[in-house]
């Protein structure tokens, strides 16, 4: 094997290794976000609790691997299902809660007002227009917290439990 080939192999190996380290950090962030979605679902006062069982994910990348931990979880004796949303038509009909993942500012901008009343919207902390959602994940130092935009919840007739409001770092009225 010549030196060029060896150098290339070493370079790719090192890159793969460091990419793995970076991906490990992303993994944890998305897993915590998945857990947060489950808790937000639990602490929403659903008008028709019998029909509350779907979380939609709006994302450019495939995040299914991270949300397997909440798919099938029981809420009010029903299994929660995760639905990948690829269009506004999908979003309008599918779900009780919609999570806007990184790089979905455009979808959040265009869809948030059009979603039916009672649908809870959650924005990733990286979204610059996260204030258009009802619950905005929020990076605080090394931790992930959340802000409740109460003016949006009121406009769309969503009731969040007092426990959720107490834990939020901020409630924007």
């Amino acid at each position, binding site marked *: 094997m010549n030196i060029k080939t060896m150098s290339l192999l070493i370079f790719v*190996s090192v890159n793969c290794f460091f990419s793995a380290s970076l991906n490990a950090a992303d993994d944890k962030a998305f897993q915590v976000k998945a857990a947060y979605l489950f808790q937000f679902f639990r602490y929403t006062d659903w008008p028709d609790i019998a029909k509350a069982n779907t979380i939609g994910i709006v994302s450019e990348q495939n995040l299914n691997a991270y949300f397997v931990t909440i798919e099938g979880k029981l809420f009010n004796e029903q299994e929660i299902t995760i639905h990948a949303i690829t269009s506004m038509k999908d979003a309008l009909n599918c779900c009780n809660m919609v999570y806007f993942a990184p790089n979905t500012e455009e979808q959040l901008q265009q869809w948030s007002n059009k979603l039916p009343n009672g649908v809870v919207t959650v924005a990733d902390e990286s979204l610059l227009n996260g204030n258009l959602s009802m619950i905005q994940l929020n990076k605080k130092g090394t931790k992930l917290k959340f802000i409740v935009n109460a003016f949006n919840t009121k406009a769309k007739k969503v009731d969040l439990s007092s426990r959720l409001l107490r834990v939020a770092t901020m409630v924007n009225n």
Partner: protein
Amino acid sequence: MNNKLKLLVSLFLISCLMTRSVNAQDFTSLSIEDLGELDVFSGSILDTHIHQKDDLMIALHHTYMQMNQMRSGTNTISTPRVLSEYMVSPIDMKMSMTMLHLMYAYSDNLTMIFATHYMDFSMQHKTRMGMQFTTNSKGMGDSELVLNYLFKQDSDDENRWIMHTALILPTGSIDEKDMTPMGHVQLPYAMQLGTGSYQVKLGVDYTQIKERYIISSQIFVQSPVNDNDAGYQIGEKILANLNYIYSLNDQLSLNFTLGYQWQNDISGTDKRLNPMVVPTAVNNNYGGNTLDAEVGISWLLPKKNKIGIHYQKVLWQNVHGMQLQHDWQVNLSWELTL
């Protein structure tokens, strides 16, 4: 295939496998409160400037300062000029101070700090007869109890307003003595380790936090509330700072500070001092205005350790009476957040 190549290919495959797998950890059993306490992100050096509930921080700051020219107002003055009015003139002063900070964030909004320091002063003098001598003092200085309260922040946490309130405790000695040609005498005000008075310090801090930099400005007012046991009190102080911290990457930041200070002179006199002998024994030879600039670099190490080195230089000063002028100082720091 030779052994080296086999090893390389194996390494390549293993590292790429690591890239492909997602470790699906289930955090759904944690409460909504506990999720907010997890360390999710690796954290950058700028994050060390923001304290969150239950953060505990220990810091040590070491400052070395040198003052080596007498000054009156905005002009430097010579030793003979000083000796035309006094029997003794200071020539230079070296100060070394080590400060310990303990900080606890009671909540995301309220932080409590205790600070104390150990000081080591050395001042060289020259007499009218041409003799030189040095006086020294060292020991614990005054201590400080501080409450910092974040009273306003915007929804995206970029703009923060913090109120500072502090009580300075007179734990430093005002009775330091040393040998001089006149015998074992009470050292002047500048060589004392403390102020002897309780002091109150109030301030406001505005901070703007962006992804790659932080800009902050502070203004403080500090005042003694009582005469000390020797019958004097140090002058009130107003301090204003403008800071810019730029993050080169997640571990390294460059810091720039512009600082202004005004201080009143000492009111009252220590009867143990003879104001005819040396300018540092005269209460009106204290206080003035200074403008200084500081540059530094901070480095975030593993396990939330941070170290820094800063150099501060006085750009302009206007002193009351005759006193040693401030010149430069170097600050070394180490912080650990738990």
